């Protein structure tokens, strides 16, 4: 199965935060965990999000193997197995790993795996007004990022 991932072309992020709300809605999250987050450093905007790293520090740090990778390369967390130790939150170099106080477990971007199954764009990408959130085959994405949107 082809590896799937998501890349944000930062130069075109204009800081509207639509991706953040679309993500919260899709994942039923309240205030607190932000699986995608845009920070402002005027006039630029810096999105923080999960890169589904090949060698994923979150996955490697998990003491109970609650974090795993599926056939599409998506790094997922099983909330049933998560013990809430936050090792993964600390391990993530991007700050993308989040903790949900409501569930007392770590939460992370699942690349909208359910939507992908139906060939729908991840929620964040679907609403982006500048179209700067790309998703799809990891190999092709890399080429696209190099070329620019």
């Amino acid at each position, binding site marked *: 199965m082809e590896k799937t991932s998501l890349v944000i072309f930062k130069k075109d992020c204009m800081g509207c935060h639509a991706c953040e*709300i*679309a993500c919260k809605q899709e994942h039923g999250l309240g205030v607190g965990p932000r699986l995608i987050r845009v920070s402002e450093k*005027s*006039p630029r905007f810096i999105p923080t999000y999960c890169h589904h790293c090949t060698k994923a520090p979150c996955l490697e740090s998990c003491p109970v193997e609650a974090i795993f990778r599926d056939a599409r390369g998506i790094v997922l967390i099983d909330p049933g197995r998560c013990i809430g130790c936050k090792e993964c939150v600390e391990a993530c170099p991007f700050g993308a790993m989040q903790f949900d106080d409501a569930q007392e477990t770590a939460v992370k971007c699942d690349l909208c795996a359910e939507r992908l199954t139906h060939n729908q764009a991840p*929620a964040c990408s679907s609403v982006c*007004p500048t*179209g700067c959130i790309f998703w799809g085959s990891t190999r092709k994405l890399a080429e696209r990022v190099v070329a620019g949107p």
Partner: protein
Amino acid sequence: MGAVRKIRTACRSCHGGCGVIAHVQDGKVRKVEGDPASPISHGTLCSKGLAATQLAYHPDRILYPLKKGDGGWKRVTWDEALNTVAAKFREVIAAHGAESIVIGQGTGRDYESHLYRFANLLGTPNVLTAGHMCYVSRVGATLITCGNLPVSDWSGDPRCIVMWACNPQWTNPDEHKGVDFWRAYKKGARLVVIDPRKGFLADKADLWLQLRPGTDAALALGFLNVIVAEELYDKEFVENYINGWEAFKERVRQYPLEKVAEITWVEKDLIRKAARMYATTKPASLQWGVPTEQTLNCTDCTRLLTGLMAVTGNLDAPGGNVFFVPPPVRTVSQFARHRDLPAEQRNKQLGGDRYKLASRVALITPKVAWDAILTGKPYPLKAGLLCGTNPVITRANAREAYEALKKLDFLAVIDFFLTPTAELADIFLPAGTWLEQNHVADNWKRHGYILARQKVVEIGECWQDHKIFLELGKRMGQEWWDTVEDALDYLLEPSGLTWEQFKEAGYLKGEQVYHKYREKGFSTPTGKVELYSTILEKWGHDPLPKYTEIPESPVSRPDLAAKYPYILNTGLRIPTFFHSANRMIPWLREIRPEPLVEIHPQTAQKHGIEEGDWVEIASPRGRVKQRAKLNEGIDPRVVVAEHGWWYPELKDAGHGWDRANINLLTDNSHASMDPVMGATNLRVLLCNIARAEE
């Protein structure tokens, strides 16, 4: 859990228009998503629209009518609430005349057709909106100049885009959304950005003109000076279609670039370069934003920008600024029955003699309403009905707005929440959100589309605004329809569609024709673009546009500048909020928990202010607190503050309306307003800053 139904509708979390697919399950909206088939938004949706479920199902939302008594707010039936309003209005009309009732709304939220119909049939000429300084002021000034509002034609592939005081992706630019601009830009158009602040677009622009806030009209004159001097204008157009070209040229020559550079702080070479780029790249489109309107130069600035479009041959040309053709339905004006307001009532309009352009577009500037309430002159306003507006937060000189609304004998408010303004009312009527209404949306806009906003759910006892006006109107003996949908059938009748059929269609688009003036001329007294305005001349004003120095600036008031050394540029938009709305929506407030004031790092250092400190901002009229955000992208002489702030989480009746509300600092004196439109200066004033305690 029942099956999920997907219902196609149109958002109205701002002025609205973006296509939405709402997911409904067991009678509740579970989720909203962008509609890829929408010709307006193409599947995108902003944070405000996406948070609609948190708005609709908010625990603080008022879901039934309220009446204020000795013990505070008390739940009543719709019958009791509407009968109370109707009885009070009848009493006021009998004793003081219908003109003693003020009807008001905030920014355009797609019920102006119904609100105006109610006001006109009631017989009051006193309708208070945001239009004196937002959009309608632009419509008014273009009506007298070229007969209609020219709108950016993004689908016509402009090769040069001038983004004049506008950030269409953070905010609603009216008409088309930012996504259409972005598509045009991405096709390789050159970009000129005029903004006192280096934002996302300024960073991307080929040319960024960082002007002194409030000097847009002077900058436009600088552009025109270059275009005239270098003969970069469309000779055929100016010869045939401009009224007063010679006189206009003479006026423009009075603004040489040295003078313009001094006024605007923009280097003259940069002005020249930008003017050349705009005038010589075809087609070129100019998108204007409200800061061009929110000073006393409102009308003149709009007329100058229209002049730029006209003399460069970009008016009603593909890819320029065009007059879109509306679909064949009844207009807001026809539905509102403006012609049926008797002349004797129209003549009683507050400020009508003074602010003639405002009067022409059927509204009053708030100052004249507050004066009438507080001084009783020229006659007192006794009662009011405000719909979807929070003037205590959003209007200039907020303290005066607050005192006036408090003093009004009787006030009814239509809203979702008990806002600081609603808390001053005697009756609260709970409105439905856009998920709870049937309406032909966007009919008031000038982009050539109408959209089906269809009811997805009903929540509590809330009624859509249109139904409130209809039911109240019937109680006042006015001519309305049995149902909201019957009224929509009437509105749609010329198109041959009923509401039920239109719902299926989703939207209608007018058939676009360019260069209409070649056949019909322009809809002005001379049939030409009146850069020399015969209407303004008749009204006793300068028929040619000019730049007037802001009455409170370092230039006009050096005495005041000693105590208030910075230019305060207010009204910075925040993408998650719409004016004073949304501060109670958890997802949105998480992104922007507190009001921010932008200060240049050098300036901050002078005052010992660090990122995140509370800052007290003071003007000659008041002081408020916002948190410091250091920004190198503004001039060190300028401070940029957000507007619209109150704290819904504070449960006292004031809800913190006087803590961070930047309009406690703004001015609404007659001298500070546009002389024909009554546009308030919401954008530029003098201030000082100091680090404040927590």
